């Protein structure tokens, strides 16, 4: 069974040490919610796991593949604070590029994914005209069609309406039921069942 192993991780931002000797393991089908106050290092942890930041010490592996290796990065999808959209492109064009960065997907699948996330009729709309929640939905659509097993979601519910949050929660549950795993942070109430909490 695949699992994400975090071993003796240490992270420093500027002069403050955010965490040291952080060890835990996330197995397939598990949902982990990382909790902590503002500035406690939740985003830094997720960025290390995503291969964007580098840890001071320790190591991160998924199925024996070390973070930042191609095999590892292929299994990881990182959803950051920003929507990762270009204002000049339409939602479909943005989605096409974002999914091409992971795995190229047929156009019909992309259009379907936009409909599923509640953006029916917005495929050709320039992203500059979308609301914050709608922008968020475009990158969520690319998350849902990616084949990555490890989902690292930094505040995935930001700017979403209750209906949108429901969709994301059900997709996380579905992803984990299919053998994936998910780490996320949120300051909102999450009603996801079986979530394990890890406090920083």
């Amino acid at each position, binding site marked *: 069974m695949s699992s994400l192993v975090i071993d003796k991780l240490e992270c420093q931002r500027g002069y403050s040490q955010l965490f040291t000797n952080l060890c835990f393991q996330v197995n397939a089908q598990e949902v982990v919610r990382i909790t902590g106050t503002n500035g406690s290092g939740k985003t830094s942890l997720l960025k290390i796991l995503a291969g964007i930041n580098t840890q001071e010490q320790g190591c991160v592996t998924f199925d024996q593949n070390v973070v930042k290796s191609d095999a590892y990065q292929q299994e990881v999808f990182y959803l950051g*604070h*920003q929507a990762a959209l270009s204002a000049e492109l339409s939602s479909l064009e943005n989605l096409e590029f974002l999914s*091409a960065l992971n795995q190229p997907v047929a156009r019909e699948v992309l259009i379907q994914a936009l409909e599923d996330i509640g953006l029916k009729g917005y495929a050709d709309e320039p992203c500059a005209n979308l609301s914050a929640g709608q922008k968020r939905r475009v990158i969520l659509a690319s998350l849902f069609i990616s084949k990555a097993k490890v989902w690292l979601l930094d505040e995935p519910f930001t700017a979403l309406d209750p209906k949108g949050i429901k969709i994301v929660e059900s997709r996380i549950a579905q992803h984990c039921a299919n053998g994936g795993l998910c780490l996320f942070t949120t300051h909102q109430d999450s009603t996801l069942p079986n979530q394990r909490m890890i406090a920083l």
Partner: protein
Amino acid sequence: MNIYFQTLSRDLRIALRNPSSVLNPLLFFIISVSLFPLAISPEATTLSQIAAGIIWVASMLAVLLSLNALFHHDFDNGVLEQMVTSHHPLALLILAKITAHWLLTGIPIILLSPLLGVFLFLDEQGIKVLMLTLLLATPSLSLIGSIGASLIVGIKNSGMLLSLLILPLYTPILIFASSAVSQAQFGLDINSQLYFLAMFLVLSLMSAPFVSALALKISLE
């Protein structure tokens, strides 16, 4: 390889929908070159002597002006983060962005240069060599420029920093390219200059995407 063309077409599409970002450096190029005859002298003998230098300096500054935007938007909206976390080699994605940058600034500069050469009374041989040096060296300008652009991407108000980082690396190109044109005007052999520019292009093509990838990763942390 597919991702290379997808990134390239994405960047071209963004630029075409926001043409002012592409046109500004080109307008700067045209305006700055066409002001020299007014300021110095409208005489053919004077102008034809300094034509190559003027056009080369102006094109270099125009490229420098356009470099700020190379990674800036993708950094602000978070697309760079997605590029770094993707399993595709970052250097390949950056090479695609550099190619798009060259197609949008280098190529128009090459195409405009004969017209500006005529403005400045450059003879036929001079114009030919000018275009050839631009063709050989503008890709190097984009490639080397990407290193500077990726180093300053996270820094606010980095205006002067990019020029300080990049211009010293540009000067050898400027020296060899403009001397090629002026030697050609006297009917002298210019092979050595062209070989140097070609060497510079191969060297920067082989190293710049990798160095930029490394610099971008550091900037994102």
